[in-house]
């Protein structure tokens, strides 16, 4: 296995390439565009045996992706932010068709105001769309997660599409060493796509995506999607075992960092978790027993793994890089819900909102998070949502406002 420097975007493209996909409908959007540029080039050179098509919108792109998948092709596509939202209704169609394609989302904050850098409101908006979601921390994990995503999605016990998420800029344009799996071993890991319920052909006519009138049928099919997503917990474990045996890297539903004896635990997702881990190290250097839990699989929600990791802690802080206005952090709500029936739940559960639209998460802010969380744990009372905003950021913003209002 040779290792090479590549961006998260290129790693995503390599994931699609190694998965030997058949079809790639595309539409450009920053910061995802590099993925489809790489694939377009490879398809043109014959290095990927897939048809690449430039579509007229993400809505059309997702429709073409889903329609090709239900025809029997293995499909890959990618988008970001506004593009994901423009395609939103189609996500629900694709999961309802039980079309197991893989979509890479490069997280970018949503307009208005329009911006380019990352937060997770885009991908988390799709959390109820019937797609499974895997959120990656490193470029290597992006590539590996795409291979695992196809294996899990195409399993007859699941047959649901998957979103693999990576952060814009902090991962998409960031190069780091990535080990490319051997294509022959990938073929052993990922069997050919031969779905039993899909594939339009003259000899097997069928109607898909049909109307159902009345709640009896509708509820049945929706229940099936939920049960399929639940099955993915076990199918993910099998895929993780197999991936580990073949490639030596292990990915579980959640990843614990220095959790063994941790009093207080910070919960994060995606690339920002790397900085969270550094903050844990810094806290430990000061004699505080901090730890980090990175949520990797968001759908299905790994409730049992989260309970297991957070049981008996003094305090837990969920750092959401998203904001549901009028509610707070999206993941905080879900973590809180799954701890409700845990008798040995943490004494305090704190909510922090940070890193919106590429906003920096400073070491000092992490230190503040750990301090406030520890205090909450001692007091036995949670806090938040705390909107992280440094005094320095406030000064800068005040200046910008003066310019904008002509009072500079």
């Amino acid at each position, binding site marked *: 296995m040779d290792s090479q420097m590549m961006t998260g975007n290129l790693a995503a493209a390599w994931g699609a390439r190694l998965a030997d996909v058949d079809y790639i409908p595309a539409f450009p959007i920053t910061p995802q565009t590099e993925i489809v540029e790489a694939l377009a080039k490879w398809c043109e050179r014959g290095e990927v045996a897939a*048809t690449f098509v430039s579509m007229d*919108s993400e*809505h059309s792109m997702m429709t*073409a992706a889903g329609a090709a998948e239900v*025809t029997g092709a293995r499909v890959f596509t990618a988008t970001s932010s506004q593009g994901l939202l423009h395609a939103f209704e189609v996500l629900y169609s694709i999961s309802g068709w039980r079309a197991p394609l893989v979509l890479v989302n490069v997280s970018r904050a949503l307009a208005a105001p329009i911006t380019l850098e990352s937060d997770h409101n885009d991908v988390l908006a799709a959390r109820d769309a019937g797609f499974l979601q895997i959120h990656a921390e490193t470029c290597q994990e992006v590539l590996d997660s795409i291979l695992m995503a196809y294996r899990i999605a195409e399993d007859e016990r699941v047959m649901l599409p998957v979103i693999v998420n990576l952060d814009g800029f902090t991962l998409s344009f960031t190069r780091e060493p990535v080990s490319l799996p051997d294509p022959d071993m990938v073929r052993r890991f990922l069997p050919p796509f031969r779905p039993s319920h899909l594939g339009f052909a003259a000899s097997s*006519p069928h*109607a898909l*995506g049909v109307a159902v009138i009345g709640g009896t049928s509708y509820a049945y099919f929706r229940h099936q999607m939920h049960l399929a997503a639940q099955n993915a917990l076990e199918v993910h474990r099998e895929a993780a075992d197999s991936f580990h045996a073949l490639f030596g890297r292990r990915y579980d539903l959640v990843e614990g960092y220095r959790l063994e004896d941790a009093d207080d635990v910070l919960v994060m997702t995606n690339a920002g978790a790397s900085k969270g881990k550094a903050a844990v190290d810094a806290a430990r250097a000061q004699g505080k027993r901090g730890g980090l839990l990175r949520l990797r699989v968001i759908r299905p929600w790994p409730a049992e793994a989260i309970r297991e990791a957070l049981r008996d802690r003094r305090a837990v802080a969920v750092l959401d890089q998203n904001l549901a206005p009028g509610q707070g952090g999206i993941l905080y709500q879900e973590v809180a819900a799954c701890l409700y029936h845990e008798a040995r739940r943490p004494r305090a559960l704190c909510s922090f909102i940070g890193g919106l639209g590429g906003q920096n998460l400073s070491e000092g802010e992490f230190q503040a998070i750990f301090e406030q969380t520890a205090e909450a744990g001692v007091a036995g009372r949670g806090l938040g949502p705390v909107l992280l905003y440094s005094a320095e950021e406030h000064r800068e913003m005040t200046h910008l406002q003066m310019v904008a209002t002509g009072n500079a």
Partner: protein
Amino acid sequence: MWQRETFKKIKQIPREEHVMPGTALCAGCGGLEALRLAAKVLGDHVVYVNAAGCFTMLAAYPYSSFKGSWLYTTMGSAPAGAQGIRDALDVLIAKRRLPKSEDLKVIVLGGDGSTYDMALSATSGAMNRQLDFYYICYDNEAYGNTGMQLSPATPYAARTATSPCSLQHPAATMQEKKDIFEIWRAHRPPYIATVAPRYPLDLEEKFARAATFTGPKMFLALAACPTGWLYDPGATPEVAKLAVETGLWPLKEAVNGVVTHTYIPKRKPVEAYLRLQGRFRHLFEPTVQTDAIRHIQERVDAYWQQAAQEQA
């Protein structure tokens, strides 16, 4: 002079049905009649890609009216669905995962709401990519499945649920019907045709001709609609006939952009057509709105005058 080559006699219409009965569509549906006749030429090795509209009910669990395949997509992206299916079939055949004998014709079904409005971008994209597919728009000149609201296909002076008559607008809508034929033609697909269910041989001939072209094959079918246009269901052929005979619905085709009218009507006064339908009743009761009727007549006259000039 345009002549039919394949379908010369009515008894050449294939006996076999491909859209099976038991549908939930209205009795007397002109759109269904157009689809039924089209399917007689298209056959069963097809996959219909449906946009939200009345035809959605043709495959409602657990019943399908098609001997071929069907995929319901969205209101705004059925042509993109056709792209995905066509491309997937091609790649699977090229990779020998699917025998060539399993290939399908890909056919988009969209109402005028989808076609003229929401799916216009997706349609433009598919035509621009020279996608090899059929597009059948069943045009009943309003958002029919939601109960007849104004669409860009609604003609001048038609009353709909969202274009009622009022003191300010005694003739109902002042909007002119969007010319989707010309919008399509600007993309230069190899084949475009208008059809009307009352002219079955003209319709069958056009589908047969379309089959000889690779690329987008675009059909605009008059879907006379008893429920929405407010006439007795038995009058569907009569209404469709008068649409053509008054010149309001020209039967034509465009081969690689070159337009030919496939039938030259003697052009009865438009009144004959308008009077049949409840959606135009306000033009005649309680008083006759001569200006509005004259306006419609003048637009038709101008169309055919220009057509004659272009022909010459």
